[in-house]
């Protein structure tokens, strides 16, 4: 079996006396579509933040693509190929949409490849990504002109611009309508077809079930289930966590 793309061993994170993550271990294969679910406050976003380097985990190791990334700054991890989208979109408000995508291109994709894109290649790549998410008509507009769903798409496009191997989509669909959710799932499927490994952190079960090949469940900072989505949701422990006794 090939080496996993992401290997998390015994990861723990506490905030003062509160244990947010408690010995979480996880591995993700290249090209996999993994769903990560759990009730509110179960530590999903904390896990993403630890994986991306925005928070420091007290114990445990994170190995990405064979490299131990513990102690690396977030921008170094992005350059290695771990990209994320934020739960609440965080666009660069003073830059146009095209320039929002330009940032990861010049600071991440460009640096990692060791080769320098020419200015016209960067412009072309910005255009291509905006077309992929259907925002090409608004390339010169500012993020404040976008609707919620467009903002989520911009968020995903910016993560994609870093040319990642692994994309962590943190609640990319929260608060969206049915048809908008379909839009985002279609987009994620398209990214998956390009060979990108995706971790989908989500509350909306319909979306998670249709997208994921494998499901991981976090409850109070502990991983309680990991496996085939159909089996996982029938797991009595998972049912108890979601529905109560």
């Amino acid at each position, binding site marked *: 079996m090939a080496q996993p793309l992401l290997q998390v061993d015994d990861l723990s994170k506490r905030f003062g006396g509160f244990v947010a993550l408690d010995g979480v271990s996880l591995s993700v294969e290249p090209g996999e579509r993994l769903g990560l679910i759990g009730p509110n406050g179960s530590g999903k976003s904390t896990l993403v933040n630890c994986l991306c380097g925005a928070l420091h985990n007290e114990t445990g190791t994170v190995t990405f693509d064979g490299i131990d990334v513990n102690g690396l700054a977030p921008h170094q991890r992005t350059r290695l190929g771990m990209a994320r989208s*934020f739960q609440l979109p965080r666009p660069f408000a003073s830059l146009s949409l095209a320039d929002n995508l330009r940032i990861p291109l010049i600071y991440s*994709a460009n640096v990692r490849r060791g080769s320098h894109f020419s200015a016209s290649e960067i412009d072309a790549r910005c255009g291509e990504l905006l077309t992929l998410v259907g925002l090409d008509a608004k390339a010169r507009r500012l993020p404040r002109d976008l609707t919620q769903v467009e903002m989520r798409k911009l968020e995903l496009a910016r993560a994609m*611009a870093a040319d990642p191997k692994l994309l962590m989509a943190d609640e990319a669909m929260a608060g969206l309508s049915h048809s908008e959710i379909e839009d985002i799932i279609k987009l994620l499927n398209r990214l998956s077809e390009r060979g990108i490994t995706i971790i989908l952190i989500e509350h909306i079960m319909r979306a998670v079930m249709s997208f994921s090949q494998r499901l991981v469940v976090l409850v109070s900072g502990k991983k309680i289930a990991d496996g085939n989505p159909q089996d996982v949701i029938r797991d009595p422990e998972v049912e108890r966590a979601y529905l109560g006794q």
Partner: protein
Amino acid sequence: MRSWTFTLVAVVAGAALFALSRFVQNDYFFFAGYVVLQYIVLSTAWNILGGYCGYVNFGTAALFALGAYTSVAIHKFHPVPIPVLIVIGGAVSAVVGLGIGYLTLRLRGAFFSIATLALAVVIQTLIINWDYVGGSRGAYILRPQTAPVIGSYIQYLFLIMLVLAVAAVAVARLIERSRLGYGFATIRDDEIAAEASGVPTLRLKLIATTLSGAFMGMAGAPLPYYVGYLDPASGFNLAYAVNSIAMPVIGGTTTWIGPLIGAILLGTLQQWVTVTISSAVNLLIVGLLLVAFVIIAPNGIVGLVRPLFQRGHR
């Protein structure tokens, strides 16, 4: 490249300004002009950190005075030409700027600003207690009557500051259109998202404090020769810190042209008021204008004018 056209225009404009000013017989013109040019350098330097990255620095006066006091110290030891002093003063302030950055850049917003203010006070206290440069008594610098080639010494100082102003504005414009400028903009907008996009935010902020500090020190280096007598109270004057914030804010902070416009308008206005009304009314006017702009036009003059030219600068 458009950058080359800009450099050419800037150099020609600078040269023309100096050539024209040679016809002015009145030395006062050069004394006043020097101050305006000095503020162009200071506000442009402040804007590299404050406008591009969004980190408001209250310590401009300290970095500026450090350049001036470096000149005093060297002059006492062995007088050297002013361009050499500018390089040394710039280097000293760059290093101190870098140090301030290391100490304070993990702080954000108001906390960063307060820290820079505190460090300015620390530096001032050190200078007051350094006897070699005059301590609190201050130091006299006897400047030569004439300068080589140019003739009048004040014209020589004016020319030096003119070159420095052109250089500062050119560097600021270069940054704005570069990879560095995009990185600075992301720091201003959202540092966490910037890191997630691969921007090494801490390193970029250190580059900004270093560059900003360097220009402030360079602007201060010729000061002892301009005033003839330098004491801590005038070198570390609050007016430098206030003006170097007010000018970019009034002009517009996110572009190179904002601090330039702000410095020319406000600097000239201050010189005019000093002569016609009173030198004490100076800062009052700055304060009133600052309040007015923050309320009416938070994006400065550039922000007011930009919508008129549909596509703007970027």
